[in-house]
């Protein structure tokens, strides 16, 4: 097991910069998730840790040793690919034993390690099957088995769940997390799904356009997004972001007419004047008779809660309420944001203004 340190790592493909200097510390035994929209460079960064892409600038160290010029096989890492990359002409047993066989491990060790891995992953009955004969979830497990037989210092996962259906994805999410808790191996996990990131990570790295937007624990990112991008990316349904101005200690949202501006209270005093973006999560809106009147556009009951999309001036607002909402489309609903849980961002820089 080992820590991974990434120092000002840069990558360009044929002159086009992809990563613009990434700094990241992953502690020993930590489960770190790289998350971001497609094309943000997260997979490239993972492949650079693996040694499948060379490093254009900066340093990557695994277990305190700089690995920039260490070939992949000597980095002591294991990777689970998006398409699993199982060898189709080998059985489950041979797939898992492949790396040990190449390392000329004694037969007894190979036998012991593959049976240990198959026991951990519940693959005992499938050892003589070929990858073709397995279901998606089973293939996923074999790919993990192939990784754990080697006791690597670091596990790398490249969007491992994106080929599975929704139900299996939730199940495998749990299994991967459980595996990490048992083995305590440093893990770097790439996904574009913020729910996966939130549920699995010890530490989330939100990336966009080849830059790190924010690093933190899942709840830090949820409670204190550092900028507009993280605010909009983390959380489902997404945070409501309203454009307006700070005035007289409150946030003023322009209404449909000059006299109908709506003022939201802010959690703390902020200097007047600058254009700003007010953020409030759908679940931090309450129904209240003294609240702000909004016009309902869409009501989506999910059973456990009701999602309401409504119009407020020129803006659209989404609310998630624990109560059942009996109002219909076109009706007026009165809602109240929880001022303590509101966020305020500069419209100019996108950075957070409230603490």
């Amino acid at each position, binding site marked *: 097991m080992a820590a991974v340190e990434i120092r000002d790592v840069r990558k360009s493909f044929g002159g086009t910069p992809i990563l613009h200097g990434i700094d990241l510390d992953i502690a020993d035994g930590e489960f770190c998730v790289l998350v971001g929209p497609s094309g943000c460079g997260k997979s490239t960064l993972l492949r650079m840790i*693996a040694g*499948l892409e060379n490093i254009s600038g900066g340093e990557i160290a695994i277990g305190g040793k700089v690995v920039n010029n260490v070939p992949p096989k000597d980095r002591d890492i294991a990777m689970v690919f998006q398409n699993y*990359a199982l*060898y189709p002409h*080998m059985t489950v047993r041979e797939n898992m034993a492949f*790396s040990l066989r190449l390392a000329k491990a004694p037969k007894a060790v190979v036998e012991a390690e593959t049976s240990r891995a198959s026991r951990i992953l519940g693959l005992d009955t499938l050892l003589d099957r070929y990858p*073709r004969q397995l279901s998606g979830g089973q293939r996923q497990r074999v790919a993990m088995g*192939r990784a754990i037989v080697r006791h690597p210092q670091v596990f790398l996962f490249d969007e491992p769940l994106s080929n599975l259906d929704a139900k299996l994805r939730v199940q495998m999410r749990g299994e991967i997390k459980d595996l990490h808790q048992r083995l305590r191996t440093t893990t770097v996990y790439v996904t574009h799904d913020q729910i996966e990131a939130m549920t699995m990570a010890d530490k989330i790295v939100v990336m966009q356009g080849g830059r790190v937007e924010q690093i933190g624990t899942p709840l830090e990112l949820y409670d204190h997004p550092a900028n507009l991008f993280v605010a909009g990316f983390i959380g489902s349904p997404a945070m409501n972001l309203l454009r307006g101005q700070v005035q007289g200690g409150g946030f003023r949202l322009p209404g449909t007419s000059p006299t109908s501006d709506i003022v939201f209270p802010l959690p703390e005093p902020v200097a007047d004047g600058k254009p700003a973006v007010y953020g409030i999560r759908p679940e931090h809106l309450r129904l209240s008779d003294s609240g702000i009147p909004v016009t309902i556009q869409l009501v989506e009951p999910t059973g456990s809660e009701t999602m309401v999309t409504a119009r407020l001036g020129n803006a659209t607002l989404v609310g998630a309420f624990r109560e059942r909402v009996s109002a219909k489309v076109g009706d007026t609903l009165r809602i109240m944001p929880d001022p303590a849980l509101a966020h305020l961002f500069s419209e100019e820089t996108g950075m957070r203004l409230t603490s």
Partner: protein
Amino acid sequence: MSEVTTAEVPWSPKRAAPGAIARLLDSKPVLIFLCLLPAVGLLLTFLTYPLGLGIWLAFTDTHVGRGGIFVGLENFESLWYDNVFWGAVFYTVFYTTVATVLKFGLGLWLALLLNENVPLKSLIRAIILMPWIVPTVLSAITFWWIYDAQFSIISYVLVDVLGWRTTYIDFLGTPWHARWSLIAANVWRGIPFVAISLLAGLQTISPSLYEAALLDGASSWQRFRKITAPLLMPILAVVLTFSVLFTFTDFQLVYAITRGGPINSTHLMATLAFQRGIPGGQLGEGAAIAVSMIPFLIFATLFSYFALARRKWQQGDDNE
């Protein structure tokens, strides 16, 4: 504005009772027969009939211009004591074996090179196909010129440019020189087919398998032996079978360059059959030589049948 009324006049499309021809064409057996007719007709006319006629002629003493009578195995008996025939059998097997080994060695090597990221890849691929596109007889004439006793460019380079030899090589005048020269020409023509087919096979192997193997600690030789070779085997078997069949039945190249000479040393079974049957007029004997190729071809086909039988890892339901 008057109200729009709908469906006041009930209307339904007219359905005429189907005619006799329509009913006939709707019957499944008739339809199957009609659909199969062109294909079966072509196969019977151009494949089964000539093959059957060839086999029949092999058991007769037919000459060109004179119908023959059934003579049983007489043609085969005389071939059994015919040294020229056995020479042709030897050279056909030798030619096929050596040329196939060389074509596969070089073709696979070329395919592996082209599967890497080389600059101008598509241009190189197009150039590689050239020997295959050129008509056989045209390339045969080119080789004839290259192998000419007096004007050979190879002799010119070796003698006049490099000075490694003092005499010109008589490529087509001595038996073994001629045999190897023809094999070289056949290999040159055959490489593109092998290289392009194997390249197609290589491209079906997912790059992530190589990355996984790289992380598993495989060297490049191990990646070739443990990943590329087994995954390429199914397509390799198909290409090998076709290549063996085409080489074994080769005719054009040899007939255009040496016509079987010198002293019958480069006769393939196909060229000898033609030589005896058409210019020689002995249709029965020529057919007998051609029929003797059948066991070899059946053996090659059976080989492909068993080698092509789906491997165990390809079987089973695809769960995706």
